[in-house]
């Protein structure tokens, strides 16, 4: 069955209307400008900017990157100029981009998050906010906000109070039960959830007997983590009603489809841009062809279509080998 009109790829995340369901991941795409020579930004949904903090950050010692099997370890350390300089010099440039711009907020206290979010959201060049809660909370011995339901709720409530713009809360996979964190974020006012951030990992140099990353530990991204990310989306989709931005190892159209079918309303592409900057536009085009071949009118119709729950009443039974 072939269609009359071309399948619809547009999607709405909270108040944010996207022409394509493909976002570029925070920290992986600069502000879009860096990739303009290699792709057409008008054919992607939007760019999630590198996370910005209250104070400027020099970031971690190098090496900040290590290649691993089908994966990439990174420990950038949130290098960024700080919100003041950022608002003064960077943000105005974003108006030129032919795609949506989503700011990313990071911090080390609930206050940090609220302060940066409020000032960032106040700018017209910023169409929505993502909150990167995979940061340590100084007030509780560096416990990661995203790893504690209460801390998650407090950050989200504080940020929510500062803006009406679409709020995407980005969850960490480094938890025992991501669904419970997802519920807290939804109840605290999140408009959408980004699932997942990087998985913690490390690599050791067997020649020098030293960790290979200057920061010792880092975040694992790329195809290696895709099965972990697909499951996280699948579980979160059963726990919340707000839209999910699926991410983690998306490199092909098949990969992206796994996330939509698991329950994501949009996908985010990070590390794959380091493999081939043409991938996001190719995925958008192939998604349309895929829907066309199956006579599906809109990408929205396949969201969660493979989410049939679990084989056992005990969600974890049967996958222990």
């Amino acid at each position: 069955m072939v269609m009359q009109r071309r399948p619809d790829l547009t999607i709405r995340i909270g108040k944010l209307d996207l022409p394509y369901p493909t976002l570029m991941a925070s920290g992986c795409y600069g502000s879009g400008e860096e990739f303009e020579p290699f792709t057409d930004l008008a054919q992607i949904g939007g760019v999630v900017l590198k996370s910005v903090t209250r104070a400027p950050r020099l970031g971690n010692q190098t090496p900040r990157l290590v290649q691993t099997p089908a994966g990439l370890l990174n420990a950038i350390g949130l290098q960024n100029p700080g919100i003041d300089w950022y608002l003064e010099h960077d943000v105005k440039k974003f108006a030129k981009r032919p795609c949506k711009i989503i700011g990313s907020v990071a911090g080390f206290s609930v206050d940090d998050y609220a302060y940066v979010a409020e000032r960032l959201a106040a700018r017209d060049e910023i169409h929505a906010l993502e909150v990167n809660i995979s940061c340590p909370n100084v007030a509780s011995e560096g416990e990661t906000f995203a790893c504690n339901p209460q801390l998650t709720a407090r950050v989200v409530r504080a940020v929510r109070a500062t803006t009406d713009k679409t709020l995407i809360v980005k969850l960490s996979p480094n938890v025992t039960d991501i669904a419970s964190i997802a519920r807290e974020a939804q109840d605290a006012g999140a408009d959408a959830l980004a699932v997942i951030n990087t998985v913690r990992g490390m690599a050791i140099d067997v020649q020098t007997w030293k960790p290979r990353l200057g920061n010792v530990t880092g975040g694992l991204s790329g195809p290696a983590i895709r099965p972990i990310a697909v499951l996280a989306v699948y579980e979160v989709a059963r726990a919340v009603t707000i839209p999910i931005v699926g991410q983690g190892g998306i490199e092909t159209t098949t990969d992206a489809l796994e996330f939509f079918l698991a329950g994501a309303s949009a996908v985010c592409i990070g590390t794959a841009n380091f493999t081939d900057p043409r991938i996001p536009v190719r995925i958008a085009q192939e998604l349309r062809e895929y829907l066309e071949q199956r006579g599906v009118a809109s990408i929205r119709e396949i969201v969660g279509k493979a989410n049939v729950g679990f084989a056992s009443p005990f969600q974890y039974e049967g996958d222990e080998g």
Partner: protein
Amino acid sequence: MPAVHDVAVSDATQLAPGVFLLGFHAPALVDVTRPGQFLMAIPPGGERCATALGIYEAQSQRASVLFFVCGPRTRELAQLRVGDRFAVSAPLGNGFTFGTASDVAIVAGGVGIASVLLPAQALVRMGKRVRLFYGARTAQLLVEKDRFAQEGCEVICATDDGSFGHHGFVTEVLANAQRKPDLILACGPSPMLRATAAVARQLGVPAQLSLEETFACGVGGCWGCVVPLDRNSAQAPGFPGADAGGSDAVHARICKEGPVFWAHELRW
């Protein structure tokens, strides 16, 4: 203007055990490449970041890369055969600048040789005097040294095992060279670059170093490849984030602000 170039392999040669020269037809790239620039080779099999490689040759519609197999990505590239297609993002980064120098010493160690042929050719064409100080672990790995001689460079070699040329580091030869150059260009492993910087300081000669670091994006988008740089350097990214440390050093991206930096401006 950089772009993604879809190219076809025109020639593939093993220069030494684990060392390969891969030529490809890329007219559009050849026209715009400046000496010292690099490319990101897109892995045919995916699943990995593109590989940063210096642009070795760029002439009559053909460009090439010269690489050492040291992991999965270079292994994959080494398997490409004549006629195979692959893609590269290029040209990237800022190359070497020659100014008014008339007597240039080029220092290359190991794979560093891959980034210095284009500057050597350009300088010879400009009528400059060019000496190549070329170091490697052993004679067999002094690949392409004759090529540089043919191109009109004076080639001085050193090997760690003494199997060819000076027995020891090439920077020692540079330090004791009769004639003092008025510009030094260097590319190679960072210990060699640090030694080159020290020699340049002693001689009071300006040196440009082409740095290496693990890259992800290669285009300035991920901040994975930084090096501490004097905040007053013309190449320093002009914002405070980079010097939150309070030091006079800022973190510059090797792929974007570099890969070539003035030795005296580095704070590594």
